[in-house]
């Protein structure tokens, strides 16, 4: 039971959503954009957030697109993770989507919600980082299309009133060889100890991680080391582990030391898998 009230809006166009946000913000109602809503409901229930209004984006047609348009895969921010993995237009993204929460929850969790959320794993972003995807973002200045690397740094960094409308991925990148490993403390459902996503393009391996630090990331420094074929794999893994962008996560899912052990093993699995292909 959510212990406070908020107003609910479900605009049918991008412009209506942007205008609503501005108006509600001016009225001091602390609006939030809402897609699947699982995280908002969860946090609101325990009073961690108190929006005065939510703007449900699911009635906006552009947010529900899932189609190859010419040579670009277009995925609307409100496409659910289960719909994504069912349609399977980008197998690495399907693998990542299927690792989030459980099947029934994935009927509600959306791509945009997962990567824009506050819970720090946000694993659906890993394939998007590896594919150098572009993001279609709506705001008061209109629509802008920008590289994911410009708006996702540890988390989505949008200006107030902006929201993610779509993700664009080049056709050439959706069928590249990949490896995806999600290691949990136990079982098949839950947050990761370590998640490693890897993709090979032009004989170069790209890697992205979740569960390792307190945010998901792709690191050029780690990729440079892992692609140095003059070194044996064990040396590459050791050096790559020294180039993490922040300290290892240490929480109920696993200690930092255990995560480091699992990370090294998982990185080795990813390198072996992609170098064999």
């Amino acid at each position: 039971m959510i212990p406070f009230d908020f107003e609910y809006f479900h605009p049918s166009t991008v412009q209506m959503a942007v205008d609503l946000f501005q108006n509600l913000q001016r009225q001091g109602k602390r609006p939030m954009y809402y897609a699947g809503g699982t995280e908002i409901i969860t946090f609101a229930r325990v009073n961690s957030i108190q929006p005065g209004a939510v703007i449900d984006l699911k009635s906006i047609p552009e947010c529900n697109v899932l189609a190859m348009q010419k040579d670009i895969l277009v995925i609307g921010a409100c496409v659910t993770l289960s719909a994504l993995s069912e349609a399977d237009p980008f197998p690495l993204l399907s693998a990542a989507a299927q690792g989030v929460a459980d099947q029934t929850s994935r009927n509600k969790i959306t791509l945009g919600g997962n990567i824009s959320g506050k819970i720090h794993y946000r694993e659906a972003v890993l394939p998007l980082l590896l594919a150098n995807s572009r993001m279609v973002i709506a705001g008061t200045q209109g629509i802008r299309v920008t590289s994911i690397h410009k708006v996702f740094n540890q988390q989505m960094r949008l200006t107030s009133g902006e929201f993610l409308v779509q993700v664009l991925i080049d056709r050439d990148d959706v069928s590249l060889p990949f490896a995806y490993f999600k290691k949990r403390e136990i079982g098949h459902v839950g947050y990761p100890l370590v998640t490693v996503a890897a993709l090979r393009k032009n004989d170069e391996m790209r890697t992205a991680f979740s569960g390792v630090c307190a945010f998901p990331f792709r690191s050029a420094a780690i990729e440079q080391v892992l692609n140095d074929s003059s070194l044996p794999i064990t040396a590459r893994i050791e050096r790559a582990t020294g180039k993490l962008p922040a300290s290892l996560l240490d929480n109920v899912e696993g200690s930092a030391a255990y995560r480091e052990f699992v990370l090294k093993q998982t990185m080795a699995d990813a390198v072996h898998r992609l170098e064999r292909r």
Partner: protein
Amino acid sequence: MSSFDADHYRVELQVNGEQQTVRVRAAETLLYTLRDHLGLTGCKPGCNNGDCGACTILVDGQPMKSCLMLTVEAWGKQITTIEGLAGSAVQRAFAQNQAFQCGYCTPGFIMNCEGLRHVHPQADEETVRIWLESNICRCTSYEEIHRAVKDVFAINTDLNRNLNTDK
């Protein structure tokens, strides 16, 4: 959906084939609307956090955790609760396999399995495994639940063959 007054919304729902109109707060989850407004107590509050699956219902044929859905989001949707089933094949399989102990989680498991039948009528063993991970049984009746669901999909594992021979 129209705003009803300053704090409440008038929402029209199709629940178990019947048109229903409820007056709710926007912050109210579908779980409590079904239970407290419509008296459909088959969907159970468990964790209220999307983890346990006891509150699972079908929304337009898809399993959904009703604790993670606002009632206002369900406007115009086709909702099915355990009360909307009447002696379905899934219910019979659960009864025949005694796939319950205390029974609190049972409606959620059954609705999830009904959703699986709807979405994947020919589900294989791996698909069944993945879907059943959405629900938790604190009495740990998993063996019997899996057997019941596999019966529904006529999945003949060695375990099922042996158990069915023993019947």
